[in-house]
């Protein structure tokens, strides 16, 4: 179906502000009497604070207050705001507020802390070894919602595995379906490999600065967040207030890649200091600090056993994942990776076992395609190995295992909705010229050898159950209130167009209300995990349908007949058979205010979330209110897919890899905003190139210190490291569980491109598999020179 707005490019309202530099991020605000604060962070990877002496600092002119861990909420279920048991170098221990930043910095240097150094580890295997060090004193294994526990494997587990193999000691979690043993027995080919994927910092461009002050019992907090209303309950909890006493302001966000999806503890520090001092407090997070506070993708140490039939179909799959948690509670990558494997390859029998183990490294959290992005290059490289050994085409082996719409996944046999992964592979292979390019595979020209690769990935791409809210004001304008946040993709604006589409509004007459709780923002989803477009087009759809019903009812009340006699014209309600009977939306808004009740927002449906109730209370009586919870059916999981194709040139004398060409084809349902979709696919792919080639967190295991804190050493890809001729495309299919056919797009291109790059490098090297991420220049050179790799097979946080 063709729409007026959905599927068309438009200028997002905040674009000009960003381009001209007028956009104000949290660090750009100034408030009368504002103090600056600085953090004192741990120099040790694991320690206990025995004594803090702040006397000399507090005597300094301009120093106003010190805030310690004892003065902020300590919640065992959440990560610490400030701590007396730092579990990583860079963990905030205390904060100093002063009249300016330099004074706060000088004061930090005058504070002495007596630490008791505690045992530390950077390697989950060391922690799992009998009597090995625990990264935390309260346990070495844990995930959100579970009690922490201490897990030690048997020395025999390690001895049996040997140096190159993941020991598979007792596990915390597992699931299984099908006949695993039978699947392996009947397989024509069985591959069984251990692997390592590096932990990768998010390194968001905008560091997570925050400004807080208090007015009449409310805390006004300017922060850097992907999501808006979704973070309010947890952020209020960190501050120690009820959600309706928190005003969150965050109109723009300079990137998060998942690290700013939920509330994070450091944002609460200026709020606590502002309460303590009675003055506004700004916390500017420096680039250096962002490494420690900005979180990272979880690393894996794993083992993957795959059984293949002669036609390449996966008969059995056995996956064991040990997740590197970092020093505090992180995300569920180790579960998500397994779910993704089950969806993408539909193994006839599958077992998953997983164990999240703490290490003394900075926090980990969800990063674009959490779990699935780092799993993709590992399993896809093994798929290529199988294709070579079984004499199959590498696209064909993916196609034969790919899910169709309605496919089942996981141990419970749950159903997913649309899958057009098969088309993505087929269309992509055609558009990329796969068959032709295969002829170049392994071709040598001087010192350069060509490699081609294909990769795929998926991610859940839509949630439900959140609220939609809009308002038609007396001037006839439509105000779409969106609480989803603005992480930088403009999807908050693109999904607002769903409401304008249904209500037949000209886009110029639509105002998007976002970025400040005081504008009345409804309970919306986290802006992460490829969720926004599916989820918020539904919330705006149901709110628009509610407004539509009310407009028709008001027309019937005033102009006679029943609501069904009327329809929506161009910002007017018009009688279907008597066009003379009509009222403008502006007139309807005036009547809505007079009528009160549900029309003006004085009354709300019972299922509306408390945060939406607070929002409506702020705007009730100012127009016709459309408000509804998204109760549209969604019996099946929504999944987005991507297939990527890459051609590389590898210099066998220098190990340098140039990506000559790249195509990513996404199954993202109906396209909402073509320009934004294009940048989503290409941007996600750039992240995938970093994952495949460059990025990792490096630690000296003896000193306990991080080696690559800065951006120069962390090596995210620059514009010269990615193909500027990259192409993005989509499949034709749509998603039936969304009224417009929309689903998400953001995550899958990362894993798919990472996999395609790794597979292309492997192809150029005649099928050499590294079983490790990233595939860095030194590893390629060692492989080319038949030298052993410098790292031990399961070693982590190395170069």
């Amino acid at each position, binding site marked *: 179906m063709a729409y007026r707005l959905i599927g068309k490019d438009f200028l997002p309202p905040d674009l000009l502000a960003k381009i001209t530099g007028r956009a104000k991020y949290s660090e750009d605000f100034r408030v009368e009497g504002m103090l600056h604060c600085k953090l004192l962070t741990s120099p040790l990877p694991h320690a206990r604070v025995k004594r803090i002496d702040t006397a000399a600092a507090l005597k300094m002119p301009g120093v106003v207050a010190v805030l310690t861990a004892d003065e902020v909420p300590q919640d065992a279920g959440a990560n610490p705001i400030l701590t007396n048991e730092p579990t990583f170098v860079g963990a905030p221990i205390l904060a100093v507020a002063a009249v300016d930043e330099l004074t706060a910095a000088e004061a930090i240097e005058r504070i002495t802390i007596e630490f008791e150094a505690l045992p530390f580890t950077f390697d989950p295997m060391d922690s799992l070894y009998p009597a090995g060090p625990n990264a935390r004193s309260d346990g070495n294994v844990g995930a959100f919602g579970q009690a922490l526990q201490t897990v030690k494997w048997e020395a025999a587990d390690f001895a049996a595995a040997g140096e190159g193999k993941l020991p598979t000691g007792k596990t915390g979690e597992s699931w299984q379906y099908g006949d695993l043993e039978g699947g392996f027995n009947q397989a024509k080919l069985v591959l069984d490999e251990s692997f390592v994927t590096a932990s990768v910092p998010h390194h968001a461009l905008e560091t997570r600065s925050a400004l807080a002050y208090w007015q009449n019992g409310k805390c006004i907090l300017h922060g850097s967040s992907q999501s808006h209303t979704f973070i309010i309950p947890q952020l209020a909890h960190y501050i120690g207030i009820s959600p309706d006493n928190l005003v969150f302001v965050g109109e723009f966000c300079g990137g998060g890649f998942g690290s700013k999806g939920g509330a994070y503890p450091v944002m609460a520090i200026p709020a606590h200091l502002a309460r303590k001092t009675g003055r506004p407090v700004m916390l500017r997070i420096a680039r250096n600090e962002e490494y420690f506070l900005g979180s990272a993708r979880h690393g894996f140490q794993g083992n993957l056993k795959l059984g293949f039939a002669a036609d390449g179909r996966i008969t059995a799959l056995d996956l064991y994942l040990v997740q590197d948690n970092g020093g505090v509670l992180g995300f569920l990558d180790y579960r998500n990776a397994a779910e993704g494997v089950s969806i993408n390859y539909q193994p006839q029998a599958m077992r998953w076992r997983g164990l999240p183990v703490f290490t003394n490294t900075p926090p980990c959290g969800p990063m674009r395609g959490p779990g699935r992005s780092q799993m993709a290059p590992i399993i896809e490289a093994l798929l290529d190995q199988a294709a070579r050994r079984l004499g199959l085409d590498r696209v064909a082996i993916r196609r034969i295992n790919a899910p169709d719409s309605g496919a089942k996944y996981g141990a419970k046999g749950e159903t997913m909705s649309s899958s057009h992964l098969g088309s993505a592979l087929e269309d992509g292979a055609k558009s990329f010229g796969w068959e032709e390019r295969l002829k170049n595979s392994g071709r040598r020209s001087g010192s350069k050898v060509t490699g081609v690769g294909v990769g795929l990935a998926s991610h859940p791409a839509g949630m439900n159950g959140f609220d939609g809210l809009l308002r038609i004001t007396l001037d006839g304008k439509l105000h779409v209130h969106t609480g989803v946040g603005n992480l930088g993709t403009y999807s908050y604006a693109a999904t607002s167009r769903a409401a304008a589409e249904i209500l037949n509004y000209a886009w110029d007459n639509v105002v998007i209300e976002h970025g400040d709780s005081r504008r009345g923002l409804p309970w919306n989803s986290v802006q992460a995990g490829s969720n926004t477009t599916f989820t918020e087009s539904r919330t705006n759809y149901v709110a628009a349908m509610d407004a539509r019903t009310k407009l028709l009812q008001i027309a019937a009340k005033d102009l006679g007949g029943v609501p069904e006699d009327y329809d929506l014209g161009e910002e007017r309600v018009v009688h279907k058979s008597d066009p003379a009977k009509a009222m403008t939306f502006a007139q309807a808004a005036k009547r809505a205010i007079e009528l009160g009740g549900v029309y003006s927002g004085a009354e709300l449906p019972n299922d509306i979330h408390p945060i939406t109730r607070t929002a409506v209370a702020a705007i009730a009586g100012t127009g016709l209110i459309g408000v509804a919870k998204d109760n549209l059916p969604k019996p099946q999981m929504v999944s987005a897919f991507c297939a990527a194709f890459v051609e590389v040139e590898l210099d066998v004398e220098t*190990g340098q890899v140039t990506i000559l060409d790249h195509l990513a084809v996404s199954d993202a349902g109906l396209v909402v905003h073509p320009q934004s979709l294009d940048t989503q696919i290409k941007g996600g792919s750039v992240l995938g190139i970093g994952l495949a080639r460059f990025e990792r967190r490096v630690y000296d295991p003896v000193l306990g*210190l991080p080696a690559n804190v800065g951006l120069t050493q962390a090596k995210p890809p620059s514009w010269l490291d990615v193909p500027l001729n990259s192409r993005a495309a989509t499949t034709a299919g749509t998603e039936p569980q969304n009224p417009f056919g929309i689903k998400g797009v953001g995550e899958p291109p990362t894993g798919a491109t990472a996999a395609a790059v790794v597979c292309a490098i492997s192809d150029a090297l005649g099928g050499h598999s590294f079983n490790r991420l990233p595939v860095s220049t*030194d590893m390629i050179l060692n492989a080319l020179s038949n030298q052993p790799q410098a790292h031990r097979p399961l070693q982590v946080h190395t170069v």
Partner: protein
Amino acid sequence: MIFKDMMPGFDLFQPAQLQDALGLLDRFGKDGWKLAGGNDSLSWFKERAKRPKAVIDLSGIPGLVGVRETADGVEIGAMTTLSALESDPLITARYRVLAEAAGRVASPQIRNSGTIGGNLAQHARCWYYRSGLPCNRAGGNTCFAEGPDSINREHALFDSSRCLAVNPSDIAPALVALDAKLVLVSSKAERVVDTDAFFVGPKIDVTSLNCIRPEELLVAIRLPKDWAGAHFYFEKVADREVWDFPLVNVAAALVITNGVIERARIACGAVSAVPKRLRAVEDVVKGKPANAETAKLAGQAATRGARPLTYNGFKVPLMANLVMRALREAKA
């Protein structure tokens, strides 16, 4: 490690005459800091690892910028930016290896502000040293990079003595290949040193990568005529194509007459604390035909004596290959 990324205060001097700058260097001695493009300086200040009392900004001094033809070759002002060098007509016409090296430093933005003098005077990039640890280079009494588990992927293959840091410059090996002379002035004297003397290994001074004294300023780099218009080769291998230091780089100048290598100067960077001049390779190729066989031999001779550490063994084949390529691919 406790606290970083906030510059401490200092007094800023912006002299408009060379003599004033030299006077300030005399006055402040080791407490003074010479500021050129600021790319290395500001990171030191932000890390709070260097705390000079006085920062002497050299950008206002006339005569330190630009490339001039002289009787004996060309002279480059030390404050000439790397971008200017990259596209300078004299340099690209006669000393292309230097233009190519300048074009591979860091990023376009850094090359616009970074100067040739600053690039040559930058400190070691060893992450242990930069972390503020009390290593030999920082005046302490240990090297943290030499342990069996040390993170030393970027460290030295050769000539380490109490320190495994490498010279990170892309310009340095090009200057060695061109037999450049460096002009150092103080309020009392001027001296002109060659690259052998300018770049300093840990055996001579473990705390500095060059011989510039606190009271001295590097004002110019002279390129003699001897190597003008020779066959040149420069290549840098780094993880990324931008904003990255070399894993290994190579610069070569070859005088080839009738297909025979008459004389050669070849150096590799990022393999030792000084840009490593490969005299053995120069001897091996002298008088030999400029062909693939000679190139192969050169590569084999390049890495003799290399002592790889835990994580930098890949530099051995990389260095050998780069030297081979330099001989094979050098162009007039």
